[in-house]
């Protein structure tokens, strides 16, 4: 893979592309005017915002000054791959090939969309699946309204501003009112350029009473230099819409992977969401579900499994603005070797959000003496007629369970594997999305097999 990259990069290009004002100006030069203005505005906010330090509660366990050296990163310089699977890396091809029943496909290589495919019967009904860069000129009204405005504006934070000024491409999925997709849209991302910083955005708009499922899988080989993948995911579930969102991250070691995700739910909207974090050296997810309409219902699921010195930091919030909405969060992780996980979750119930049902659970399984998990659940409740609970556990493999399985003939490693997959897999039972459950189980098993517990 590395050789392929070297072939594609012109030597003189390698020197330029440091993450400075010049890159922002170059990107803005290709933007329509409204977008260029926003990019430059994001730059101003970025410059005025200090880098979050561990003094901040939200960043206490992830030291950006040590884990993310922006000065050493450059913006991607490799040329985009052609829209031809034969030219793609084998792992990307085989991952794509598994998804037969998808209603649409989109492939990003090194942050740029190289392939888009959506059934004609869907595009004729107004469904849009396209590159965000193209959408900037082809669907400006939609983007002007939703992109980096109501969900993840640059004012949200330093890293959000960074993304808003440097994003190069991404995904737009729009489903018109009443249109219901019966199968998922599949997005596959491949990263190969080492030492680069990739910024992309995902914008999903599910119009009223529509239904969609979106599965986003990111993968790469290991990186020999620190590499950043930054994603801003904005999801709008309008009144009565049903959105299923799955992201599975299997990026190679050496990567710092940041995802900012915000989902806005209207009246009676439903969200089933799953974040699977398996790869990267450092993973930071900022997830916020905002229940803006009464009757909104969100299932927020997460899985992570670490080995080596992997670091996972999940920072979640469930904001109940409207009354009579429900949110249920379950994040589970297993940690081996000297890997480490932090889960920080808050349920906020605004004044007037009566009849709220909000739950939050984080469970961790520690597989080695050097692994560590911290859970920091929090409730901020400003209404009196609510049902809220939170719980967190950090436990070890149960020796009696392992003995039971071994007494049937399983080796200790097999027994551990089964218990870990069972422990994590229970999260998937809450996700009513066939095919994806099997796939995620398979990638967890794959990681277990490759790890020390093989």
């Amino acid at each position, binding site marked *: 893979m590395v050789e392929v990259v070297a072939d594609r990069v012109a030597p003189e290009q390698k020197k330029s592309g440091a993450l400075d004002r010049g890159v922002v100006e170059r990107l803005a030069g290709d933007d329509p005017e409204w977008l260029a203005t926003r990019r430059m505005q994001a730059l101003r906010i970025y410059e005025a915002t200090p880098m979050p330090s561990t003094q901040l509660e939200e960043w206490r366990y992830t030291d950006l000054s040590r884990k993310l050296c922006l000065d050493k990163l450059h913006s991607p310089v490799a040329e985009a791959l052609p829209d031809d699977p034969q030219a793609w890396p084998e792992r990307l091809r085989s991952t794509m090939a598994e998804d037969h029943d998808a209603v649409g496909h989109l492939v990003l290589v090194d942050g740029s969309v190289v392939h888009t495919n959506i059934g004609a019967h869907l595009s004729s009904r107004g469904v849009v699946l396209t590159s965000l860069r193209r959408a900037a000129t082809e669907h400006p009204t939609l983007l002007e309204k939703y992109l980096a405005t109501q969900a993840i504006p640059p004012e949200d934070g330093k890293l959000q501003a960074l993304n808003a000024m440097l994003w190069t491409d991404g995904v737009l999925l729009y489903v018109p009112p009443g249109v219901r997709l019966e199968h998922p849209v599949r997005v596959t991302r491949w990263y190969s350029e080492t030492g680069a910083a990739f910024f992309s955005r995902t914008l999903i708009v599910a119009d009223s009473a529509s239904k969609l499922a979106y599965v986003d899988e990111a993968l790469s080989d290991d990186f020999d230099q620190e590499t950043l993948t930054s994603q801003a995911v904005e999801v709008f579930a309008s009144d009565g819409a049903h959105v299923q969102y799955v992201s599975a991250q299997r990026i190679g070691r050496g990567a710092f992977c940041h995802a900012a995700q915000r989902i806005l739910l209207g009246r009676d909207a439903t969200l089933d969401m799953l974040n699977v974090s398996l790869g990267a050296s450092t993973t930071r997810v900022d997830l916020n579900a905002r229940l803006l309409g009464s009757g909104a219902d969100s299932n927020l699921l997460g899985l992570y499994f670490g080995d080596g010195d992997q670091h996972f930091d999940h920072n979640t919030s469930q904001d109940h603005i409207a009354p009579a909405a429900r949110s249920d969060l379950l994040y589970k992780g297993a940690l081996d070797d000297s890997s480490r996980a932090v889960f920080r979750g808050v349920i906020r119930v605004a004044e007037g959000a009566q009849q709220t049902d909000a739950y939050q659970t984080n469970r961790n399984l520690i597989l080695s003496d050097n692994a560590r998990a911290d859970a920091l659940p929090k409730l901020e409740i400003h209404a009196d007629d609510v049902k809220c609970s939170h719980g967190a556990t950090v436990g070890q493999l149960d*020796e009696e369970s392992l*003995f039971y*399985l071994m*007494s*049937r*003939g399983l080796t200790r490693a097999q027994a551990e594997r089964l218990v870990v997959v*069972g422990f994590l897999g229970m999260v998937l039972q809450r996700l009513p999305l066939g095919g994806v459950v099997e796939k995620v189980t398979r990638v967890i098993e794959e990681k277990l097999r490759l790890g020390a517990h093989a």
Partner: protein
Amino acid sequence: MSDTTILSIENLHVKVADEGLAILKGVDLTLPGGEVHAVMGPNGSGKSTLAKVLTGHPGYEVVAGTVVFDGRDLLELEPNERACAGIFLAFQYPVEIPGVSIANFLRTAMQSRLVEGEELDLFDFQDLLLDRMNLLDMDVSFAERPVNDGFSGGEKKRNEILQMAVLKPRLALMDETDSGLDIDALKVVAHGVNTLRCEDPTMSVLLITHYQRMLDYIRPDVVHVMVDGRIVRSGGPDVAVRLEEEGYAMLREADARTVVQM
């Protein structure tokens, strides 16, 4: 020791690992292949401990004595090696394993019995599992349920025998499988065990129980009585009948230290 002896326990002393507490204090027991031996005895006398030690539970330490299974030093083997050698324990208190389905677990257990590189035929496995569920009058939906998770007491016991019927051990250790089973379930389970013995007449059973009832369905060749970590009496089926009638008081008449040989 005759050629047909499958299990031979001599002077077995066991204590709780990391603690001083002695539980088995010199157990002697010989089990010829194909026979059914019952072990009875008061609560806390060490019956389950014996079964778990034979299976290789890491919570116990063998202080003295030998156990030979099928000509091999059993105490040398890991729990999984013992299982693959043909030992199976139907637990008194089966563990719940959330998220792991019975089918998946048994498939892995069957696969672990094959030599390296050999693949389990999934169709054969499926057939075997269905056949065994049928034998034990179990609904097929059980196969996809997580192991013992949320099972009733009786369902857990039946699930133990299902595993036994799939894995076909040479020596089945059954620890109070009858407790928790209703009358009908007891008959079904006993029928399952007897079917396995018909299929393989060399299969041996060491059956721990408190009640004669179980022994009406699975006829023992020998009944052992364990008291305070020792076998204090061994005899024919009538020992169980007398115990049922008189309770353990009958042992006090005899010298509890005299082991009555058959």
